[in-house]
């Protein structure tokens, strides 16, 4: 997967036509084969742009930045990224007319070790779902509402769910104990755009200010519930976590519950679909309630 040339050309054309003020893409970091996101405002820098299977970071995150707000932005989105963009559009965070979206039919990206990322091996929506231009044709053929493959519960979630309660409790105690409450997860998530966040320390007194295990538990639980039905599994949070916590477990758990019980679409696949907590069905399960 290499769309470097195409993206450079498109970006150059957009600048030449005066259609964008800033282009958000990837560039090489300059010393190894890893890439960093770059915000280009000078058309001459277009040649820095690259796109390969090392283009991991979800660039939609930059749409909440001061550098892009209220500007005309060109950006590159993979399948998962585009779903988060869809939600950003639905939740009125960005205006569609200000964006020029280069969609990618994504074949999956790799981690530092060169291994295909887990979410990519499980990915059911590889194609960008919102774009002005789609590079790479379509991989999923005709896109069904839930993606191109039948939904499967994440293997890690299944494995944990099968563990005895005490072991699972011990496992997660370790997870929350290793959280250092830096909130990189929240900041790296494109959908965490709130001015006041439930897990920022600003709300410390009322919620949980200290960096204790107990607070980390509270913060991550609340955070994952705020992303329930909205998380697009781009794993920006997990990549950002300095303690390498398996944050996807919480999100995938919520996703599987929502998918299996409410028959909702995967987050962000459908335009104007707001996520499972903002609607209801009379047929929702009731048997867990006395």
């Amino acid at each position, binding site marked *: 997967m290499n769309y470097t040339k195409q993206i450079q050309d498109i970006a150059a054309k957009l600048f030449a036509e005066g259609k964008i003020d800033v282009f958000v893409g990837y560039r090489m970091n300059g010393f190894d084969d890893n890439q960093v996101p770059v915000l280009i405002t000078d058309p001459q820098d277009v040649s820095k742009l690259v796109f390969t299977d090392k283009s991991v970071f979800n660039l939609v995150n930059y749409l909440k930045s001061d550098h892009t707000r209220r500007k005309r932005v060109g950006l590159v989105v993979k399948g998962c990224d585009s779903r988060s963009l869809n939600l950003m559009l639905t939740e009125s*965070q960005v205006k569609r007319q200000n964006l020029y979206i280069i969609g990618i039919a994504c074949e999956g990206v790799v981690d530092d070790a060169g291994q295909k990322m887990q979410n990519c091996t499980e990915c059911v929506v590889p194609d960008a779902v919102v774009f002005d231009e789609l590079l790479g044709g379509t991989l999923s053929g005709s896109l069904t509402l839930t993606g191109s493959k039948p939904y499967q519960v994440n293997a890690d979630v299944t494995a944990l769910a099968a563990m005895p309660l005490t072991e699972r409790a011990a496992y997660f105690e370790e997870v929350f104990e290793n959280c250092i409450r830096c909130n990189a997860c929240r900041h790296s998530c494109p959908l965490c755009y709130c*001015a*006041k966040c439930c897990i920022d320390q600003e709300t410390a007194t009322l919620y949980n200010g200290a960096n204790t295990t107990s607070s980390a538990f509270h913060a991550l639980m609340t955070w994952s519930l705020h992303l329930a039905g909205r998380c697009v599994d781009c794993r920006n949070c997990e990549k950002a976590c300095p303690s390498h916590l398996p944050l996807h477990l919480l999100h995938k758990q919520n996703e599987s519950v929502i998918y299996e019980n409410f028959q909702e679409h995967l987050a962000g696949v459908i335009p104007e679909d707001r996520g499972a907590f903002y609607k209801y069905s009379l047929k929702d399960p009731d048997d867990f309630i006395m």
Partner: protein
Amino acid sequence: MARVGVFVCFCGANIADYVDVPQVVEEVKRIRDVKYAIEYKYMCSDPGQGMIRDAIVQYKLTSIVVAACSPRMHEKTFRKALSDAGMNPYLLEVANIREHSSWVHQKDKKAATEKAMDLCRMAVAKSIANEQLHEISVPVTKRALVIGGGIAGIQAALDIADARIPVVLVEKSPSIGGKMAQLDETFPTLDCSQCILTPKMVDVASHPYIELIPYAEVLELQGFVGNYKVKIKKKASYVNFKTCTGCGACWQKCPVKVPNEYNMGIDKRKAIYTPFPQAVPNKPVIDAEHCTMLLKGKCGICAKVCLPGAIDYKMEDEIIEREIGAVVVATGYDMWDPKPYEEYGVGRFKDIITSLEFERMVSANGPTNGVPVRPSDGKVPKNVVFIKCIGSRDEAKGIEYCSKICCMYTTKHTILLHHKVHDSHSYVFYMDIRAAGKGYEEFVKKAQVDTGATYLRGRVSKIYKKGDKLMVRGEDAQIGQVVEVEADLVVLATAVIAPKDNPDLARLLGISYDKYGYLSEAHPKLRPVETAKAGIFLAGCTQAPKDIPDTVSQASACAAKVCGLFSGDTMKKDPMVSTISNEYCSGCQNCVKVCPYGAIVTDEVPVGHGSKELRTVAKINEGVCQGCGSCVAICRSMAITLAGFTDPQIINEIVSI
């Protein structure tokens, strides 16, 4: 620092017998913020309330906790005591130590006392976070909208207008009167329907406080209680009502004949028509679907014969707006179409008619001049079979509920038949006779004796033709045998159903409806007139099947509600509503989606202080907000606060024990 006063009630022996009240007081006194705590026999009594008032002044208290019975019982009482002492009434919290402790843990005084202490701690902690709240006052537009001009709408409009409140009455057909105008005589007194209805119709037309808008539909309702704005579509009538004198020359000369809806299609009307002779307003309209002038541009006779020149073929639908404060919905009912009863030969045998068709035939101004006839050959029937519960109480083909009025009108029909055709005989197939109502049972009994009608308890299984007669086969459950009756005419007592437009109307008004399409009342017993949306009321069969007296009662009740609502220039409203902080709102608008009352709208605010750039945020209309808190719980940025149940208040409660 908060200064909380705690007042623990003995409630005579109700609390004191099972909770160690002095111990509770001692425990409460240990709490840092409690500056005063005392127990008393009856806190709700005058001396008890006096203690609260005195302590507020003496100890400079900043919030009050009363530990007594349920807040649902005496919250208002104690709030008033706070008010009387010059304190904001919403600084009160009630710890429910009677319903939630002493009465339910009568066997374990120690546990009940401990629980009472915890409940007091929670109330104290919550009260510290209480804020001063003030009743919301919302201005009121004193004009009511009545949708539907049947007897329910007429009655509601007249009652409201008589209280000198302007009313806008919207009726979708060319004349008001509704179903009642189609009836001949009414049970149980057999007075003539037209005779009692038409004076009221005339009153509506002439009432100075009623603006009658016939041949119109409601398009849109915006706003909230006291402050609605309604858009009404006046359908093109092609007749200028201002110049038309109602002489009738036009419809007499009109060459186009159309089945007459008023007479259930038994006879014909013209393409320009007044629905019935006593119509109000008594002005014709042109039926655009059939008028050849409007369809093909040929004819134009009516315009030629109209001396005042009231005909205007170029007339278009007109949309008008009215500002109103309350709505009464009285859209009435429809009759169920018995087509699914194929085994009866409905549709195949002409001599099977519905009850409303029978009603028109026996009506003095009906198509047959008051004499029932067989549609097949025009002969007067001798043996008539009435079948009840057609569609109603029938889950398989129709609906589950009982239509309520069919037993009574069928009884009436047997009488009317007996009056018009003296040598006739009625057979009535019935499941039950439901005659609950003033004079109803007597009416049924008397009718059975007077008419000599044969009542057969059981369902009809089949109707087939034998010569020119209809053979009705059914079971007589009382003798346990199959019976067959030879009939000249069969009358089906079809069910009452909700108007098919009701769901659309409900969505337009923002109210709910049930699975049958009837509009839902706020509470089935205690608020049968209100809807869940403040300022919208229900009258008549649009809510559920009803007879005329019930309909009129409900219409008058609606009027009373509307008058109550309009009794002041502003409405007072509970201040426990949500507010949104512009600073923290990220504008995702999920709350707009979740709010069941449409109380949240979007607003534009500057991006920063003094900035000219705008961004979208959500805004709550406190006049509409009912304070459920749905929006608060789904707001991820915690930008929404529900007064009285704020996050700090609830968290304080949680961490206080």
